[in-house]
């Protein structure tokens, strides 16, 4: 008679312990933040900077790796530890985020729009935890953004604008190509910014566009790039993730004389002789910036838009020095003009059609 009661008692204890554990985990994170916020910077403090990857995992040479760099840099400059939880599939986003919260993270960074739903769900359940969502915004059912999620959106078109200027000045044939992954808004922003840049630098040049339909078919990427080159283009802009690797391949096969413009980071080593520049997004910097805010107690949620003005986007530094002085000059001026608001870079085809180049 006593035994079943004891068993039930034990189970209740387990449940109680579990809830205490989760509560203390959340609470711990909260109080840690509190002290961090109050005391300014307690170097080597009990910070835990967590990253949850999307289904592609680490080693994607893109978002996930950049995110990892971001949390690692945060750990380096703000103290504490960086931790990366990889997701094998969509079904693991929520448990991974839960795990990151439960282990007492100061902030949880999630990269990629695919995680938007999962972050929203977990952030609602843990209003005291802080989340950084790259490339998407977490909103509740009413469409209001959550106060504990910083949704970082890059103004990719501004970076692409600069890349477009470089490309427009570099092309000999006045024909340019574009290989996109899927016609998503972010990809379209890259394209329109690029087109605007080309128009700005070289009004007689034209851009041919093509989409893969996914972000991983590098064979098709190579095929599309080759088609661009065959049609006379000498520069191809790739915004195709893993599928973009085929574009580098195609350029290498052609040899010198054709160029590739990359995305997100400098991927010069993929085709050293053909690498013109890249429209880069400073994901590590953005993550670090939000973590810094969290460490300082100034974390705010909502949408955060980052562009040239914030120096969060740009073009590949490594190849920039090798460009002709005239081009460099033009880019610097454009950077300034965009940063100061003198030029508004179009982000949709509509805006592009209304865009008229102005001398910076």
């Amino acid at each position, binding site marked *: 008679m006593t035994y079943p009661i004891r068993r039930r008692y034990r189970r209740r204890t*387990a*449940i109680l*312990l*579990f809830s205490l*554990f*989760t509560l203390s985990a959340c609470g711990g994170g909260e109080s840690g933040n509190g002290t961090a916020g109050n005391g300014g910077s307690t170097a080597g403090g009990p910070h835990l900077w967590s990253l949850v990857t999307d*289904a592609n*995992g680490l080693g994607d040479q893109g978002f996930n790796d950049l995110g990892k760099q971001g949390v690692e840099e945060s750990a380096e400059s703000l103290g504490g530890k960086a*931790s*990366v*939880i*990889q*997701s*094998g*599939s*969509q*079904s*693991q986003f*929520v*448990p*991974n985020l*839960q*795990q990151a919260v439960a*282990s007492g993270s100061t902030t949880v960074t999630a990269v990629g*729009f*695919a995680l*938007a*739903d999962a972050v929203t769900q977990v952030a609602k*359940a843990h209003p005291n935890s802080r989340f950084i969502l790259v490339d998407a915004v977490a909103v509740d059912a009413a469409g209001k953004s959550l106060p504990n999620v910083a949704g970082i959106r890059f103004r990719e078109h501004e970076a692409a604008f600069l890349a477009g200027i470089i490309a427009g000045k570099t092309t000999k044939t006045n024909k340019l190509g574009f290989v996109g992954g*899927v*016609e*998503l*808004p*972010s990809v379209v922003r890259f394209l329109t910014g690029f087109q605007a840049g080309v128009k700005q630098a070289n009004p007689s040049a034209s851009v041919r566009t093509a989409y893969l*339909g*996914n972000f991983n078919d590098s064979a098709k990427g190579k095929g599309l790039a080759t088609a661009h080159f065959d049609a006379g283009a000498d520069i191809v802009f790739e915004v195709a993730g893993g599928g973009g690797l085929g574009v580098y391949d195609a350029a290498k096969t052609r040899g010198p004389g054709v160029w590739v413009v990359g995305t997100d980071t400098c991927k010069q080593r993929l085709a050293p002789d053909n690498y013109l520049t890249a429209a880069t997004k400073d994901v590590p910097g953005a993550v670090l910036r939000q973590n810094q805010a969290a460490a300082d107690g100034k974390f705010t949620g909502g949408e955060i838009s980052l562009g040239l003005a914030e120096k969060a986007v740009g073009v590949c530094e490594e190849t920039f020095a090798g460009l002709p002085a005239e081009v460099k000059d033009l880019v610097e001026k454009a950077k300034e003009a965009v940063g100061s608001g003198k030029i508004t870079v179009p982000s949709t085809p509509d805006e592009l059609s209304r865009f008229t180049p102005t001398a910076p």
Partner: protein
Amino acid sequence: MIRLPAIKIQQGLSSRPFLSAGSFLGTLALALAAAVPLIYLAGTDPVTAYGALLRGSVGDQYALSETVVQATPLLVGGLAVALAFHAGLFNIGVEGQLVVGGLAAAAVGVNLDLPAAVHLPVAVLTGAAAGAAWAAIPAVLKAWRGVHEVVTTIMFNYLAFGLSRHLVAPGGGLASATQPSASDPVADGARLPALTETTRIHSGVLLAVAAVIAVGWFLYRTPAGFKLRMVGANPTTASFHGVGVRRVQIGALMGSGALAGLAGASEILGLYGRYLDSFSPGYGFQAIAIALMGMLTPLGVLAAAAFFGMLAAGSVGLQSVGISRELINVVSGLVVGFVAAQPALIGAYLRRRRKRQASGQGEDASAAPADVDARSAHV
């Protein structure tokens, strides 16, 4: 990958519950043991790793709930594979049928405006019906033209993946304006309600349990199930005894597809609330391993799905002790390998046991002259 003759032997085992339970656990133990050197290579020790795995999967209530959530689609998918296997058909198309089931359920959930009491059943049933429909063409081709179902169902997987990608790509019929590669959220009335506040367990779990009972009942307690198993065991004998083999084959493959569609619908309507292009990380393929590991019996499939659910849920815990999630894939790969090797292992065990019994009975055998090599047979 998986050879069909292996299944024969395993089916024969289902009549020996202790042996089959033993071989199930033995397979697990061997797979986990074989992973030990790899765990050391990954830079930690098995106690830590398996401890973390257990904590992450059954360590507390939330972990347990995650195991259940992860096991649900695997369970229903495993039942789908097992049902087809019982009719002698190898449905590799579960993955595609699952995707189509999810798509159909989402389409109904997003686009129709129905009262809640009707909306959910309609969405779930549409998902199952879509899975069945996706299996129908391979089924008819198999029954009437003898086209091997393995080939056609694999082809239909690719059709399903393409359809899914197309529908949620920009401009596709289901694409969401705000979330790329996904549909809009389904109406609240079409959601499979959550069972608890704090966990992700949803009423799709109940559907899965109902499916276990239904499939078990059907296979072992109804004349139709008997005929289905008869067709699987020997189609010629079945046809000579008045069983419409073609009808049974078509029905079995479509029933299998319906279960797969149900698995997809339950994920979309229960877990995610909207269609996501990559919502299945290959449940339909894991389901094959699960069905075989579960020796094609519903309870066996339940046990195997629970184990694979534990692996999926526990992988989070593993990462927290610094082991890459790839190790989980290694362990499940080892399980699949040992499942494939199971008949040989069981055969060796049975021979040994027979030998031991024989020598126990006849004392003269042990005293036999050395001319005859009386050692147990080699494998």
